[in-house]
């Protein structure tokens, strides 16, 4: 009956917090800041953070030749700590050829398909999560730096419209929880601001690594709204809006979340 709790908690919270405002820059907080000290310690240690298991797998895949081209990522991109530093902090990024923003998983799969001439990796597959975690790990500590050009801005607006739109059987918007009530709690757990700083994350509830889109689909299901399929443009636009909302916050990949 989690949904029931959600609706009840919101009814209580709705009366006391002014609605409709974006979070001020100085007030932004990562999900990390809301976690128990033990969970923070788990994220902080490279030998206690389970996400590092995927990063190690990703490092092995980086060096492995694949596809008809028989090339590895390393053959073209060389040393990842140098070539991939700060890259994940820029994604989703507008892709001029495709005429739309693509997320980091889709960027990696473009190289799989076009450069390695291999089959794209399925969303949430172990290998795609591992490569994504490895690439994004190279941006740890780097500030999120979504571009400010015109086509990017248009997609950010589309994402923001989805963020503030009430939807689903509970008639909720993302903003009602993550902008208006982030200091509150939902069924005992902190709501948080929904900042996308640590993806892919190791979520204790999943007992696995998972992408930002998986997390967004979780929230949409909780709102009893229709969750678009993994890879859908609606989800990429939401990711882009969340990343632009988090501009300047440091990347934590692989983060641990409850």
């Amino acid at each position, binding site marked *: 009956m989690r949904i029931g709790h959600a609706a009840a908690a919101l009814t209580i919270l709705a009366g006391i917090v002014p609605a409709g405002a974006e979070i001020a820059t100085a007030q932004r907080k990562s999900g990390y800041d809301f976690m128990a000290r033990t969970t923070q310690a788990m994220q902080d*240690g*490279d030998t206690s953070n389970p996400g590092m298991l995927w990063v190690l797998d990703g490092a092995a895949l980086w060096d492995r030749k694949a596809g008809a081209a028989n090339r590895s990522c390393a053959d073209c991109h060389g040393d990842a700590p140098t070539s991939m530093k700060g890259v994940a902090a820029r994604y989703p990024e507008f892709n001029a050829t495709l005429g739309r923003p693509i997320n980091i998983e889709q960027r990696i799969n473009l190289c799989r398909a076009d450069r390695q001439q291999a089959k794209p990796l399925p969303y949430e597959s172990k290998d795609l999560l591992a490569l994504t975690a490895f690439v994004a790990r190279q941006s740890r500590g780097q500030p999120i730096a979504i571009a400010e050009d015109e086509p990017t801005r248009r997609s950010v607006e589309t994402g923001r419209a989805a963020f503030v739109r009430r939807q689903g059987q509970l008639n909720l918007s993302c903003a009602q929880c993550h902008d208006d009530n982030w200091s509150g709690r939902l069924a005992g757990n902190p709501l948080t601001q929904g900042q996308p700083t640590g993806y892919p994350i190791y979520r204790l509830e999943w*007992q*696995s690594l998972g992408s930002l889109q998986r997390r967004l689909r979780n929230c949409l299901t909780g709102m009893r709204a229709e969750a678009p399929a993994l890879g859908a443009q609606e989800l990429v636009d939401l990711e882009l809006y969340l990343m632009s909302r988090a501009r300047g916050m440091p990347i934590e990949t692989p983060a641990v979340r409850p």
Partner: protein
Amino acid sequence: MAARALINVPPTAKRGEIVVIKALISHEMESGFRPNAVGQLIPRNIIKEFVCTYNGVEVFRAEFFSAISANPFLSFTTVATESGTVTMTWKGDNGFFATESVAIAVE
């Protein structure tokens, strides 16, 4: 991909010092109680035993059961007695076996 383990043993320690050892391993720890999409139970696939030896002498052992989380993480202590090797092994269902060794220097 084969199981990956991340272990943390301090590379150096003073004789008599209590050192913390940490061990994390990738394993799905399928409990044996979950049904699949067509209602059949997914067979149990867990790690059953973890042993840590220090220069061949067992210093820590743990038994795992179905309720242990995926990718289990252990943290325990031992007393640094002499320079040598700390070895950890994990054994489980379907012949699962993984081992890692690391040197410790004791002054």
